[in-house]
């Protein structure tokens, strides 16, 4: 259904390393305008790393990452700055500034990046707090909020500028089921009303199945599968099913490589 739609995120052959260790092993992926793409995978699958590269926080070893038609691996800092105005990010921990009120936190991107009138900025920030069910909380300090509220306030800040691309790192982690379900609803509404393209990194299956148009399953730095919720559910790939059924992975051990790691000895010297 998405094949004719414009790809607003286009990743090609993305290879990344942390030090010597290869994390992503040649990932290619398209995300279309107005699509909700969920990136799933277990711990160490590379999903958080993938998000960090999509945000342009690191330079990859090779490959390209196009956001809204611009290859961010080639952009200079000014170009990246301009592009970031069209991107919203909600990180796992919230990352609000503790010395500012909740309202000032949400207003921050608008004050940094726009020349809008104060009255407009204040109404916009209150609107965003209303959307995340924090209406009337704008004068509180972050320390006065619960963990779930901090997370919602961070989301309000992430959407302050009505970004075209919205990135979420583990939106449901640490939230109670009701708040978590509300957040899922909100993600769907944001896409429908503001036509945002949304990338969500999560390991919460229920949430993924509820919001995703398509799901990308990452495993050990490779894409196992990109497909609709139905396609992922019905996949006969064993690793996908392990993930869905929360089965621990049973890896075949390479005894030599294992010994090499334990003893920190190069393989050829064993």
């Amino acid at each position, binding site marked *: 259904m998405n094949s004719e739609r414009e790809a607003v995120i286009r990743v090609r052959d993305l290879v990344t390393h942390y030090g010597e260790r290869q994390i992503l092993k040649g990932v290619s992926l398209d995300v279309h305008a107005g699509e909700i793409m969920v990136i799933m995978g277990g711990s160490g699958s590379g999903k958080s790393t993938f998000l960090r590269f999509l945000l342009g926080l690191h330079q990859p070893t090779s490959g390209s990452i196009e956001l809204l038609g611009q290859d961010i691996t080639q952009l200079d800092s000014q170009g990246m700055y301009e592009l970031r105005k069209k991107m919203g990010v909600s990180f796992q921990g919230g990352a609000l500034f503790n010395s500012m009120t909740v309202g000032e936190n949400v207003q921050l991107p608008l004050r940094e990046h726009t020349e809008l009138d104060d009255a407009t900025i204040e109404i916009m920030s209150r*609107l965003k707090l209303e959307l995340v069910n924090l209406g009337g909380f704008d004068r509180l300090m972050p320390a006065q909020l619960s963990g779930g509220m901090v997370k919602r306030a961070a989301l309000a800040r992430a959407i302050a500028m009505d970004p075209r691309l919205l990135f979420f790192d583990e939106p449901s982690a640490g939230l109670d089921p009701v708040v978590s379900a509300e957040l899922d609803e909100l993600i769907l509404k944001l896409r429908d*009303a503001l036509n945002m393209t949304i990338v969500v990194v999560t390991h919460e299956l229920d949430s993924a199945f509820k919001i995703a148009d398509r799901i990308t399953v990452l495993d050990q730095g490779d894409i196992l599968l990109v497909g609709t919720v139905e396609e992922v559910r019905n996949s006969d790939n064993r690793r996908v099913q392990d993930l869905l059924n929360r089965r621990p992975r049973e890896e075949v051990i390479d005894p030599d490589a294992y010994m090499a790691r334990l003893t920190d000895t190069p393989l050829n010297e064993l």
Partner: protein
Amino acid sequence: MQHAITERQGASVLSLGGEIDLSNSPQARKLILAEIKAGNTLAIDLSGVSYIDSSGIASLVEGYQKAKSGGSRFGLVAVSEPAMKVLKLARLDQVFPLFASVDDFLV
């Protein structure tokens, strides 16, 4: 964003069209506030709006608040589907006086 102001039976009708976003919502705001400052009854026709972001919505909110406090009539008319989605997202469809047409507003 396109805009036009016409007068109908003593009321100002501000028609906005196209995309209302960060780049042009200050202009929409100015047009709205000028009408309200002049004490005019104001109907804002949103039938031609293909996209409106929250800065545009904020300008409508501010206009409505100023009209209310100044005692002048204010309404949104023939709200297009994309604009209505955004109003509903913020539950503002329950706040603004909404009219199907300018005629309905003028009744």
